Structures are given as structure tokens and as C-alpha cells.
């Protein structure tokens, strides 16, 4: 590997893998199959910015052939007119945790049989439609850069989801239960998930509509995790800070929440967003975005670390063959010391919101929205009537002050997060949380 004039830095990240899917619809195996891929991305940093080549079916090159590849990326690097510097950070790779059962040792026939059983478990009275999916992706990643740093690892992410639709007199509702993991095959004895999806769909048929407005709210760990992800995680991404597209820009040290509030992104946790090393070869590390209510650290890649400072590199992530972006991994609200009873009695009258149908944020405006799968009205500290289709919106800089109590047990939920056309595995979590003056949306009337 020789340094080329005009090339300040280069790296190459190759991902080859295979993904297997099974799709079951009302007891029928709709489709099952395997996809193979091999993609590479080569980045060259020239004097004025990045030239990036995305190559399908890359086979490792050396000598003159590799130099030619670098030269074509270098040519692309003549287009930008930016000032790019790269911060330095530790380079170590963590061990990918071992799996309890390797997906590769289970035949696709057995996987399909188990998935059919999970889907069948959703066959309950009033359920009119069921669907289940299994997805497994085994990836081999190799990385090298111009400083001589090299690594490779293999990781398998797998999981399933089951959906049930219930209907009665024209009212149609659904329940959805996903479970994705890095800990190996997770499809055995999981009929509970099918039951749960069906129960949720059926219960929602009788749920009322929530009336929108400002009210006290209790968020379950799943939904409070989405709050951490949407309201804080995205706005702390270093590229958005550098571009000036985040309300957290320039607010290091500023108090934006209560003393009890600490929000963390930690790619070292063995949850679904785990990375053994980041996509630029940098060691991953726990990053306390908010510590005791104050803006503490941003999520960075090498470029944004140099440009913005205050934070931790090692948050660069990428889909196969795509250039790395600053991303979250496992994002959560730290536990507090409140009991569930204390949280509900402090709320007194309001709404309990649980489960998640996803969310979105405009980090520049500092406004986020997310939707609960279901909720209950809280009257005198007690959960009463079930409600459905409740969402929550808020402003990042004011909402966090409303988090007044955090429970003792944190639970993480896995999923995928999209940004810049790339979807990466993540997990979010929190304890039970009390949120004062939440802005709740629902189409119910007085």
C-alpha cells in the first residue's frame, strides 16, 4: 500500500453476505429464498473532499490494478471544494458475541415450519388475517485503510415478525410483534409472539379514540426508547451538527432536561445495534449524549469529530457497499429510582402510551413525532379505558424538561433506522418514564 500524491487518505470496506427470507401469509408460504451479494466502497480523501467508488462484485486487487482503482476515486475527489480534516481515535475491534444456535445449522424447511407455528398462534377468534416474516442476514466485512489499519469480522442478524389483523363490524385493527437479534436463531418456541399480536389486534377493536391535546403522559420502555432515538439521538449526529441542521448545535453543556435524565448511545452493548468496530475502523464506545440533563457529547465519525469536536468518534455505520454515515446504534434513557406506582400516581390524570409504530424528527426545527401502538387513559393514578391511534409530538428543547421520573428497569427493543437512503439495525430502550405536559395527537372528539 503506497501513499499517492494528492491522496490524503483512503479506505476500502467490502461486505459480502447472504440473506434468507421466508414470508408466510395466512398459513401459506408465500415465498422463501436466498439472496447473495458482494459490494465494496472505496473512499479517497483528496485535498478538497471525498471521491467515492461503489463497486459490485469486488475481488481484492493489488499493485497496479489497485492503484488504478484509487486513481479513479481520486479523479472524483477533484469535484468537491470542501475543507475536510479527519480526527483521530482509538482503533480496536471487539469480539462479536457468540450465538446460542447458529442459523446456518437449521434447515430452511425447519425455519419455515417454526415460522408457520408462530403465525398459526395468531389464529384467534376475530382475527381475519395473519402474516409472518423471517429474515436472516449473514455478513462478512473486511476493512483496510491507508494507515495500514485492517480488520474483518462476521456477524449474523436474524429475526422474525408476526402480524394479526382483527375485524368486527367494519372496524379493523392490527397487532404486530417483531423480534430481531444478534444472538443466533430465535424462532424456536415463540408462539407467544403470535398470541400477543392477536390479543393486541382484538383488544384494539374495543379501544376508544384518544382526544388530542396537552396532557401528562406515562411512556412504556419501548415508546420512551423511541423518544430517546427521535428526540435526542438524531439531533446529536455530528454530520447534522456540522451542517447546522440540528437544534443541539452550539448547546454543549446547556441544560435541556432534568437532573435525572441521562441519554446514551452505546454500540458496544450486545443488542441489535451492536458493532464490533465502526465503518471507518474506529473503536466503538459508549457515548453519553445527555448527562444529568445537560448536552454532554455528540455522535461522530472522524470528519465530524474534527469539524465539531465535543463527542466520540466510532459512530460511522454503513449498509453493504454504501459510504458510512454518522448513525445511532443502541440508544436509551438511563434508569432512575422511581417505582411504577410512583410514576402513575405522579401522572394522576393523563394517558399511558405503549408500543411503537415508529417516529420521525426534523432535527433542524427540533420537532419530532411518534406513534404509540396503544394507550390507556390514566385517571387518579390508575389505568382505565384503552385507547388507540395516539401519537405524540414535541419540541426537543422543551419536551425533555418534562421527563420528571424514570423507572428502575430498562428494556431494549430492536428495529431498523433509516437515514440518507440507508437502513441500519438499531435498538432503543428506556425504563418507564413520566412525561409532564405531553402534546398528544388523536382524532377523538369531546
Amino acid at each position: 500500500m503506497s501513499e499517492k500524491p494528492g491522496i490524503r487518505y483512503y479506505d476500502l470496506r467490502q461486505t459480502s453476505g447472504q440473506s434468507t427470507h421466508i414470508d408466510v401469509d395466512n398459513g401459506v408460504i408465500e415465498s422463501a429464498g436466498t439472496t447473495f451479494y458482494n459490494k465494496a466502497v472505496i473512499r479517497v480523501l483528496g485535498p478538497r473532499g471525498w471521491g467515492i467508488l461503489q463497486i459490485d462484485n469486488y475481488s481484492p486487487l493489488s499493485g497496479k490494478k489497485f492503484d488504478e482503482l484509487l486513481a479513479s476515486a481520486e479523479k472524483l475527489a477533484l469535484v468537491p471544494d470542501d475543507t475536510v480534516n479527519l480526527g483521530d481515535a482509538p482503533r480496536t475491534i471487539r469480539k462479536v458475541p457468540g450465538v446460542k444456535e447458529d442459523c446456518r445449522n437449521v434447515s430452511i424447511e425447519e425455519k419455515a415450519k417454526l415460522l408457520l407455528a408462530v403465525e398459526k398462534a395468531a389464529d384467534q377468534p376475530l382475527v381475519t388475517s395473519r402474516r409472518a416474516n423471517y429474515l436472516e442476514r449473514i455478513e462478512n466485512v473486511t476493512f483496510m485503510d491507508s494507515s495500514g489499519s485492517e480488520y474483518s469480522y462476521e456477524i449474523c442478524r436474524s429475526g422474525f415478525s408476526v402480524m394479526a389483523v382483527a375485524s368486527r363490524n367494519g372496524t379493523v385493527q392490527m397487532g404486530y410483534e417483531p423480534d430481531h437479534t444478534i444472538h443466533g436463531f430465535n424462532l424456536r418456541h415463540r408462539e407467544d409472539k403470535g398470541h400477543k399480536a392477536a390479543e393486541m389486534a382484538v383488544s384494539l377493536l374495543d379501544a376508544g379514540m384518544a382526544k388530542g391535546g396537552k396532557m401528562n403522559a406515562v411512556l412504556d420502555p419501548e415508546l420512551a426508547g423511541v423518544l430517546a432515538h427521535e428526540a435526542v439521538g438524531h439531533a446529536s449526529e455530528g454530520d447534522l451538527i456540522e451542517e447546522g441542521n440540528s437544534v443541539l448545535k452550539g448547546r454543549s453543556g446547556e441544560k435541556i432536561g432534568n437532573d435525572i435524565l441521562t441519554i446514551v448511545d452505546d454500540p458496544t452493548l450486545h443488542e441489535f445495534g451492536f458493532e464490533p468496530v465502526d465503518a471507518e475502523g474506529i473503536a466503538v464506545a459508549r457515548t453519553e449524549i445527555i448527562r444529568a440533563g445537560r448536552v454532554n457529547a455528540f455522535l461522530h465519525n472522524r470528519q465530524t469529530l474534527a469539524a465539531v469536536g465535543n463527542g466520540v468518534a466510532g459512530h460511522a455505520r454503513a449498509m453493504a457497499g454504501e459510504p458510512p454515515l454518522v448513525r445511532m446504534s443502541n440508544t436509551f434513557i438511563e434508569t432512575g429510582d422511581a417505582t411504577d406506582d410512583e410514576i402513575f400516581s405522579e401522572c394522576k390524570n393523563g394517558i399511558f402510551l405503549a408500543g411503537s409504530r415508529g417516529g420521525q424528527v426534523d432535527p433542524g426545527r427540533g420537532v419530532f413525532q411518534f406513534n404509540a401502538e396503544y394507550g390507556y387513559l390514566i385517571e387518579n393514578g390508575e389505568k382505565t379505558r384503552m385507547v388507540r391511534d395516539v401519537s405524540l409530538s414535541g419540541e426537543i428543547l422543551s419536551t425533555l424538561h418534562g421527563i420528571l421520573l424514570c423507572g428502575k428497569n430498562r428494556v431494549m427493543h430492536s428495529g431498523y433506522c433509516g437515514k440518507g437512503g440507508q437502513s441500519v439495525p438499531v435498538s432503543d430502550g428506556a425504563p418507564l418514564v413520566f412525561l409532564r405536559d405531553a402534546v398528544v395527537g388523536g382524532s377523538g372528539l369531546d
Partner: protein
Amino acid sequence: MAWIDELLLEGEKRVDELEVYSFSGTSTSAELKQRRVSLCTSSVETGLCIRTIDKGRIGSSSTNNPKEWRACLDAAIAGGRLATPQEWKGLPDPVVLPKEDLSFDPTVSPDPEITRDLLSQMLEGASEHPDATVTSGGAGIGIGEITFANSHGIRYLSRQSEVSVSLEAISGQSTGYEFDHAVSRTLVNPEKVGEQATFLAARSAGGKDIPTGDYNVIFSPMAYADLMSNIFVPALSGRNVLQNRSKLAGRIGEQVCAPLLSLYDDPHRKGAERSTWFDAEGTPTRRLDFVKDGTLEMFAYDLKTACRAGTESTGSAIRAGFGGLPAIGHHNFIIDGKREEIFDEPAVYVHSVVGAHTANPMSGDFSVEMSNPFCVKDGALAEPIRGAMITGNFFDLQKQVAALGKESRAVGSYILPPVKINNVRIIGK
């Protein structure tokens, strides 16, 4: 491509029928970080997707390395062994299709210099509103070629091109986003994108709160298409109808939208980006009138769902990327009807919504945050509104559509004007 013939010959020895979808494309893109070009990317993509049908068992596999077609064929046949057998009437036979490419401009070239020019033109447009700062943006150019073949003798070729630009801007805590995409360089307007993104950011600053209540709302094409694609359009899929997941099931012939509204798929519109003579399974495409003058007329089907439902494919199979299996979708989804001057009377204008994907697709209930909402007065956007949620049932709202604006634009695979709906609930803060 001799290997496709070899593949088909090999496959026919092992299964009843098979189809091959092969894609190759090149693209280039450049991105802005504030007003500076920060990176330039070039990519070459190839892909192959094989589907086999044997005694009603459908198998499939894909790879991004066409040279590995043998492994891909093996995997497709193996997947098929697992599939539940179903009623199957056969892959389509070849027909003579027009040669003309509908979504392709031969002058489009993935040249990095042109992406830089597109970015400069956007920045020029953005300079019209100096109160707003550009935060990020991008320009991309791509061309691609699809070869579709099956064991009944189909050999179809089609070429595509796309030019796209987008820009994000901010003024204080007020953001603006705009984009444009088309098959030709001459059909995108980067200056206007730059001007609009900064206009939205600059003019939305200092918005006032709005009290909770029912308002006449003008949804921009972006806002309406976002809700439409997440809630209403999935209910038109024959698969969702068949599997009891569509609120529109069993309602053919009923009035499901206001009589002024028509919704159709027009796959032969010249210059529209998703135009094609054949669908992802080789079925010839045609215009599909899903909703005509407010009345539900039909659903969309691919081959296998059509067999199960006892009907014919409507040529609605599409693929999400080269590796994607054929699934029911649409080509160019047009929202049309009588056009009016809708900005004359007072209303709330919403430019986009935050969180449309969190809506309940079964019931149609949604509550989302509005982005860049304005009060409409005297034919123009007047005072900005600070932010509020908009809520309701999207299926019910289709009956309340009051009027369609004059100018249509493309938003992804949708082509539509702004849509005015009366009495929509807004939740103030």
C-alpha cells in the same frame, strides 16, 4: 446476452417455467455540506433475479453477480420446493410491444461535472432568500438497462434514466426542504428547488400558534402523496384485499372518494419516471382506473394473486430494486380531477408531514406533525404557523376532498396537484 439463454435452457430442464430479470446501471452523485461540495460518488450496479415455477411452487433468488447465475438458479429452485403450491396459470407469452423507451433520455450521462453544475444552479436559486442558510443537498444522475426474459420466449429490453436534486435549508429554527426528479436534465429545475427550500425556511420563521379546531386544509403534493402512499394505496393491492387487510375490500362500485377525484395508474405516460410497456413479470401494462369520479372500480393484481383471486393480472407487478421479488404496486400513480384556483379562499396550507409512516394502514387513522404550515390568504401563502398536529381518518377524508389545485408535479411514483380537504382537525399546542 448469451448467458441468459443458457440459463433459461438449463432452468427449463429442471422446472416447468422460469423468468430472468437482469439489471445493470451506472450512476453518479455529489453532495453539499452547507454551500460546499463535500463528496462525489460514482457507482456501477448489476443484478440478477430468477424466479422458477414448478407445479405451482414459486421459488426465487437474486444476486448482484450475474456470473453466479448457476448458484442463483439452484437457490431459486430450492426456495420453490419449500413454497406452498398454488393455482398457477402460467407466465405470460411474448407480445409485440412498442420499441420506444418511455422513461429514458439518451442524452443523460452520469457525469460528475454535471452533478456539480446542478448543485451550483441550486445554490444560485437558494441565494434569493439570504435569510436562510443551506445545510445540505444532493444531485444525482443515473442510467440503467433492464433485460427481462422468460421460458415462454419473452425477451424485453428497457432503458431508464433519472436526474434528481434536493436541498435542505434552515433559518433560525425553521427548516425547508425541496426536491425535483425527472428522466431528463432539462425537466428538472434546480434553481427553483434552491429557491423553494430557502423560501420555506425563511418564510416559516416566526410562526404563530394555531388553536385546535377544524380547518379547510390544502395538502401540498408532497404531504398528500406521503399519506396516500402509506394509507390508501396499500388498500388497492389485490393481495391485501384477498388477505382481509384492505379497508376497501368488497367495496367495488361504491363511492370511496369525492366525485371530483379520480385515481389511476398510467404506465404509458411519456417522460414520467416509472413508465413501462411491461411489468416486473412481463405482463403488458395498461391504464388502470382504480377510482373513477369517486367510485372504486378495481384493484391491482400480479400473476399469483390474480390466480388466487380468480382474476387476471393487471400488469401491476413492480420490483423494489434489482434484488426485489415482483410484488403488487403501481407505475405512475396519477391523482386527477377538475382543477380549480384553490388558493383564493382562506385555508391552512401544509407543505409536508412528519411521521406519515406511523399512520394505521388498516383503519386509516393518523395524527402527524405538520411541516411548513401557512395561512392562505388572497391567493398566496401568508402568515406561517408555528407547528401543530393534523389528525383524522384518511379514508373518510377522501370523501371530503373539496378541490384540486391547478399544477401537478411528480413526487416519487405519484403525479398530483395540491389537494384541498375541508373540515380537517388540527391540534394546536
